């Protein structure tokens, strides 16, 4: 089962991660992103507005997804992270690589 992807523009998709982004759902995120990139969505926003919890596996999946997008010549950004998710990002310094945006629309300045 994959996370839903909304199309903002033909090449810009929003992956909505609902519930927990963790050891169990990490694979789902990787699969979703690989599939979206494969269908031409080279710019992706991972919308974390409805994400209640993220652990180290979730964090790993975000970076893995970034790698996938970059490898295809695209980019991946994140938006709407809650306090707990921000804490994990800051703790690992990953906020310096994945800058948290307020909304998916703001992520690519569209």
């Amino acid at each position, binding site marked *: 089962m994959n996370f839903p992807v909304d199309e903002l523009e033909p090449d810009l998709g929003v992956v909505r991660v609902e519930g927990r982004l963790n050891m169990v759902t990490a694979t789902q995120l990787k699969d979703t992103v690989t599939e979206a990139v494969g269908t031409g969505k080279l710019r992706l926003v991972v919308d974390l507005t409805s994400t209640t919890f993220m652990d180290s596996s979730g964090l790993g999946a975000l970076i893995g997804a970034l790698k996938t997008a970059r490898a295809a010549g695209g980019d991946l950004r994140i938006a709407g992270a809650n306090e707990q998710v921000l804490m994990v990002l800051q703790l*690992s310094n990953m906020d310096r*690589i994945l800058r948290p945006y307020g909304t998916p629309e703001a992520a690519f300045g569209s």
Partner: protein
Amino acid sequence: MTRRGSPDNLSHAQESRRLLWLRIWTTMTLVLGFNYIGWRWLASVNWANWWIAVPLVLAETYSIIDLTLFSITIWRSRQREDAPPPPLDSDVDVFITTYNEPVELVVETVRAAIKIDHPHRTWVLDDGAREDLRQAAETLGAGYITRGDEWHGKPRHAKAGNLNNALLQTQGEYILVLDADMVAHPAILDRTLGFFSDEKVGLVQTPQHFINVPPSDPLGSQAPLFYGPIQEGKDGWGAAFFCGSNAVLRREALMEIGITGYVDATQRTVINRLKEARVLVRHSLRGADPSAQEILVQTRNAIDHALAEISRAEPIAEVTYVLHRKLSQLSHATVGDDMAQLADDLDALGFDQAAFNIDSEEVISRLAALDLSPLNAVEAVDRTLQAIDIGRSDEAQAVLPMATISVTEDMATSMRMHARGWKSVFHNEILAEGLAPEGLAASLTQRLRWAQGTMQVFLRENPLTLRGLTLPQRLMYFSTMWSYLSGFATVVYLLAPILFLTAGVLPVSSYAEQFFLRFIPFMVANQLLFVFASRGLPTWRGQQYTLALFPVWIKACYTAAANVWAGRPLGFAVTPKAGTRQTQIPWGLIGWQLAASIALVISIVVGTIWLVTGHAEPIGTLINLAWVVFDLVSMSALVGAVRYRGYHADEETR
């Protein structure tokens, strides 16, 4: 001081002689009873009408078992000798429990409590947290205790919680518990403390007697049979019950059951949670992706190991600590793997991973801690971690001395004390007098609560299986529980004669000589047994109510079952002590009884018509008419009850 039950204070020899005769009479009654019920089962069930014949013979069997348990009880109903003088240095706290009773009423109780002769401290346990009561108590020189913030959002456990709260804030070696309306006699402690010179005695209970009840006792408030032969008999078997008020308890006994209760509850909770977690882990194993699968397998093994250790009686704290450590190592390893993968990805992305410091021990530890652990991913593992919570965080207090499994915390508490080997004493002397409800509604509420509480204990901590009780103690507790099942038998006793008189449905195969020879002697012996057992005290009102309140007993059974098995609320209400007089006749309270009475009257008319017109069998009809009259006379107690307007001392001369 009034010694109840023996107006002329029988001597020891007289008491022994009385008991001997009582035992002979009891044996004879039981022989007659078993002879009757044996004949009923073997030779007189009218199988053609099995749908009423079988319920009837079952109801009769119920009654015979009830009589047997009563007989066992009174077999040892003997008055105790007076207590030895109390040790002078015994340190006593007097607890007055109140919730919503009028302040003036509580103040009277406090005044009397302060005047108790033996040195003591008096405390008002106010669950209503009323400022005016606090001031009144402090002016009189009594302590005032109410619930603190730690109870916020936690189960309050009504009166049991109120007492537990106070127990942890006081130090007295003994505790006298008084309801808000129970005015104590100054000698109450001098007359009871001496029993504690036996170091295994944990409880001394005295009778509850009510001053606002006329001699006719329209609501059946006094319980002379219970606070007499029944409690004396239970005492004789080492099983006198705690009845919530007018009793002295040994703090050590209460704390001991509180602590063992805590240990048991913790163990049960940990085992149950671990078992649940194991089931969930197994469930998640199916279809989990490979990365999660290995962690799940290891978690399952850790849980299995912990459960095995617990069943080998290893200390819970140690087992849970080891499990905790193991899960924490797993968590650490998982985070380490995640971070290593992440570092590789960063390399692939062209970042200098060293700049981010992601695989530092500090970062890994933080990400592996309980709140962020990847093990939380699996709900099952999350639960396992919760199972390790042994602080009883769902309760305001970890140690609950008064049992909280029932709305009748008193009976549940004394049963646990007995199971731990503590002894109890019933001292049959009125040493405190209180107020009974003055209206039928309040009285019914009270009886419903007692019955519900008793059934809760029966379903939650069945005395027949509770470890540590002696066989007689088991039977004494079971006897009280059994007696609350009478409502179902009563329904059959009401239906059977109505069916016979109106429709000619015959539940027994014979109403002739055979029946008379077995039934009449038994019935006579049975009635006389009550007279002898109660030493002539008025027990008839109690017998009437046992039959007449059948809807209350039935309601208590099904509400308690729904509460224990399905977690439904009981609709628990505190019995009002004052202002319970009724101004209108509350017919609605006794709807079922009215319907039954009307049906009984109709059956008399119809039965008589059949008899006079020669269509009915005369002997059977007469027996059933007598039976119906007995039912109606029992039910008639309610007529006085619904019309009762409260107690006025001058209306009836004592």
